[in-house]
């Protein structure tokens, strides 16, 4: 490579404009040391650029000069700083001051941004948690409600079970006699059963099928003892009718019958309102 190669390569123009790559700079600076023509060509282009720059000169405000000289005079140690190392020289106070300023500003901005982002994330997280919490609270309340209803139902079933057990105990007693009372001619569909414990003399009645009476009426059970009706008491209908109902005690009876009477019962049975009747077997 000769001097002419560099002069015509276009590298000098790039170099003068400050646009050459690092490798190109090294290449050209080596050539400048080797060939005076190259160095001269570089200097010519450099002067061209400097002339172009000088054409764009502007007078700065007078305050800049005042400030500059103030700064130089306020640093007396500068007068004796001839021995300072290059490293220190490269870090003028002015530069480090502005750098610190801009650095702290940047830190504050970065910290603020980080805090804002953090806050937004926490907001999002807590809002979601709150939503979840609300959801769970609703679910919990409805669960509590259904648990309560289950509990009350359970109590109901328990009571019912106990009652059934009691009924079953009554029926399973070997001393209990069962007296079937079919419907009379007037009420052929009706049916009821008496369970009569022969040892305790206790009488129970079980409704198999009886029409629901009016609100002011009640069914009454009678025991026919030696041809005369003896009241065994009134009994309930509705849900209670599904169970055995404990009536009064009688030592003897040939027949049992049920009549519909006024609420609370009557002293003597109304024969026309006899729904069921049955003879004691044996």
């Amino acid at each position, binding site marked *: 490579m000769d001097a002419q190669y560099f002069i015509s390569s276009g590298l000098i123009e790039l170099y003068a404009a400050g646009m050459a790559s690092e490798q190109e700079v090294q290449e050209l600076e080596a050539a400048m040391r080797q060939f005076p023509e190259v160095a001269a060509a570089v200097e010519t282009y450099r002067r*061209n650029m400097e002339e172009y720059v000088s054409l764009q*000169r502007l007078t*700065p405000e007078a305050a800049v*000069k005042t400030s500059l000289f103030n*700064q130089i005079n306020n640093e007396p140690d500068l007068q004796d700083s001839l021995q300072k190392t290059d490293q220190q020289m490269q870090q003028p106070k002015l530069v480090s001051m502005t750098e610190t300023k801009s650095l702290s500003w940047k830190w504050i901005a970065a910290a603020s941004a980080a805090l804002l982002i953090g806050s937004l994330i926490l907001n999002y997280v807590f809002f979601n948690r709150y939503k979840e919490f609300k959801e769970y609270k609703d679910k919990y309340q409805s669960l509590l409600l259904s648990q309560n209803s289950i509990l009350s139902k359970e109590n109901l079933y328990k009571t019912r079970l106990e009652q059934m057990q009691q009924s079953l105990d009554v029926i399973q007693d070997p001393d209990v006699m069962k007296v079937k009372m079919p419907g009379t001619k007037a009420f052929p569909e009706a049916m009821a059963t008496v369970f009569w414990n022969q040892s305790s003399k206790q009488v129970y009645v079980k409704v198999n099928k009886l029409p629901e009476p009016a609100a002011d009426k009640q069914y009454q059970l009678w025991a026919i003892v030696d041809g005369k009706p003896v009241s065994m008491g009134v009994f309930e209908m509705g849900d209670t009718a599904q169970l055995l109902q404990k009536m009064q005690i009688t030592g003897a009876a040939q027949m049992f019958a049920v009549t519909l009477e006024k609420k609370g019962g009557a002293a003597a049975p109304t024969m026309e309102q006899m729904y069921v009747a049955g003879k004691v077997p044996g």
Partner: protein
Amino acid sequence: MGATLTYTEIELVQGLQARDEKIFSYLYDHYSPALYGVALKIVTDEASAGDVLQEVFIKIWRNIDRYDASKGRLFTWMLNIARNTAIDSLRSKAHKLDQKVQDVTSTSLMYEPQLAVHLPVDHLGLTKVIDGLPKDQRIIIDLAYFKGCTQEEIAKVLEIPLGTVKTRMRNAIIQLRILLKQL
């Protein structure tokens, strides 16, 4: 500007090395307009350019011992300090590449003498040079010299191939040289 100097470069350098404030003041008066012009071209606002200029002269004052006359003229050395300081200031302000391009194209308004706030001393000469340089050549010189863009950056922002950047740059400098000779 050589004709107006009453000190030679060697005298200036020696005076500065002796911490002669009179010489420093003289240096400021004679070179600050050119260096301020460079700073303003790079940072584009007058307050920042003033700050850069002050920093440049403080660096000159403190680092004059590092100036090596065998490597180039004093003006070249000062010009490099001004360019580097201004470009550093620009970078510290996190100017983006697009911003650089925008600056170059918008400050080209300053080429119009009637729009300039400060009338450049040699504005007739400047106008002649600016008018003689095609706009695409002027932008490429300004991006490289004043904004410190690399060839790759220029190719990217102007959306032209790298080879075209080099060719256009070379043509621009050759054209600039012809125009300067005519002044």
